[in-house]
């Protein structure tokens, strides 16, 4: 019981991750701007659909267009429709043509929320021009904005609530990698010492890793369906991850094709070293060299900043730890079973 404390720890951390990771609310954000294109010299009503906001219960919500220079143009005539929907008017001046503006909203309950480059001002080709005056840009001190209290995950458009998948999808791959690393260590130790225990450990860790890899592919596919739009996109990281899974499937098939225990152990140890060495360029190098939708690949910024801010880290790192502990537990069960079978003289 005392020696198994880490198993209990694994379950407790996983519980913490599942409960906390699902119950911490998301920051408010803007899901839709209609229309997203305005014409210079026009007055236009824009409908803003938001998420997790409290337009009705909050003090009046104010909306601005923020220029690249950091100047603010406040919207007129803000009409609250529901907690998450409002309409507002902007007088778009001639000199705003051809620029992109960030849309920022603020109220006392939700704090500030924004869409970077949410509105584009296009050239007005029609003859009827109403507004020739300069736009009334002002300075707004965003430091005065009240920040809502409590823990909140960042709001990212498209991702929405699925940003929580960081704990359940990304962490799986990290844990898988650690388990394969442990499998690799024992494979090398087997080749060095020839002790059967190392072979059993190696295959047990690799099997836990393969389980996480399969789950990682399935959860990733599900995530892709709701963000990128397809169960399987031609993203290089996906295909390379699938390929590395096939390598490890090959490892299992290879193991099962031997009758002689020693030959099986030796060849499969060598193969698992090869599979791990192939895994690194497949998953970590090639996707970085080409285009990929994954963060940190194909010129995308790596996990960090808003994608993995401190609130996400609070659950992301524990999740990796919990999955590693559970993976080690499953590997240990496999190992003990193998040991028992050998002890009883049963060949498996």
């Amino acid at each position, binding site marked *: 019981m005392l020696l198994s404390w880490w198993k209990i720890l694994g379950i407790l951390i996983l519980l913490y991750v599942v409960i906390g990771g699902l119950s911490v609310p998301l920051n408010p954000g803007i899901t839709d701007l209609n229309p997203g294109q305005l014409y210079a010299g026009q007055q236009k009503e824009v409908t803003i659909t938001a998420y997790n906001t409290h337009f009705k219960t909050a003090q009046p919500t104010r909306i601005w267009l923020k220029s690249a220079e950091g100047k603010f143009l406040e919207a007129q005539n803000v009409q609250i429709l529901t907690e998450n929907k409002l309409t507002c008017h902007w007088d778009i001046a001639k000199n705003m043509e051809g620029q992109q503006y960030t849309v920022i909203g603020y109220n006392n309950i939700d704090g500030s929320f924004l869409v970077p480059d949410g509105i584009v001002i296009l050239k007005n080709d029609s003859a009827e021009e109403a507004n020739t005056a300069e736009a009334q840009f002002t300075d707004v001190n965003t430091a005065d904005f009240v920040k809502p209290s409590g823990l909140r995950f960042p709001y990212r458009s498209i991702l929405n609530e*699925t940003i929580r998948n960081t704990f359940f999808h990304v962490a799986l791959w990290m844990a898988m990698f650690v388990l394969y690393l442990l499998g690799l260590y024992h494979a090398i130790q087997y080749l060095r010492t020839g002790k059967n225990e190392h072979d059993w450990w190696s295959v047990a860790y690799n099997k836990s890793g393969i389980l996480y890899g399969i789950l990682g*592919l*399935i959860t990733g596919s599900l*995530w892709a369906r709701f963000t990128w739009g397809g169960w*399987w996109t031609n993203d290089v990281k996906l295909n390379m991850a699938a390929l590395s899974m096939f390598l490890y499937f090959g490892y299992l098939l290879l193991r*099962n094709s031997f009758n002689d225990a020693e030959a099986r152990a030796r060849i499969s140890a060598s193969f698992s070293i090869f599979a791990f060495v192939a895994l690194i360029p497949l998953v970590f190098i090639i996707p970085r060299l080409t285009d990929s939708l994954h963060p940190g690949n194909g010129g995308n910024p790596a996990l960090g900043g808003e994608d993995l801010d401190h609130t996400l880290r609070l659950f992301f790192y524990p999740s990796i730890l919990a999955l590693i502990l559970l993976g080690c537990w499953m590997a240990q069960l496999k190992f003990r*079973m193998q040991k028992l079978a050998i002890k*009883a003289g*049963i060949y*498996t």
Partner: protein
Amino acid sequence: MPDHSFKCIMWSSIALLMFPYTASAEVSDLDFLRSTGKIYSVIAGVVIVLLGIGVYLWRIDNKLTKLEKQIKDEHETN
């Protein structure tokens, strides 16, 4: 042992190969999973992870039962 994991690998491989072809077949019967900021797709992900670990443990359990039986049989024959 060989027969079981072979089947498992075969089906996983077929499922993996099928992925690109199922992509366009689905249209949009997934509105439920997309509601409330796609939270239910996250729940589905959590369920998959827990189910996956559960199924793996179930298989270990089954193999252990078989092993126990074998050991018991051997004791009786000796």
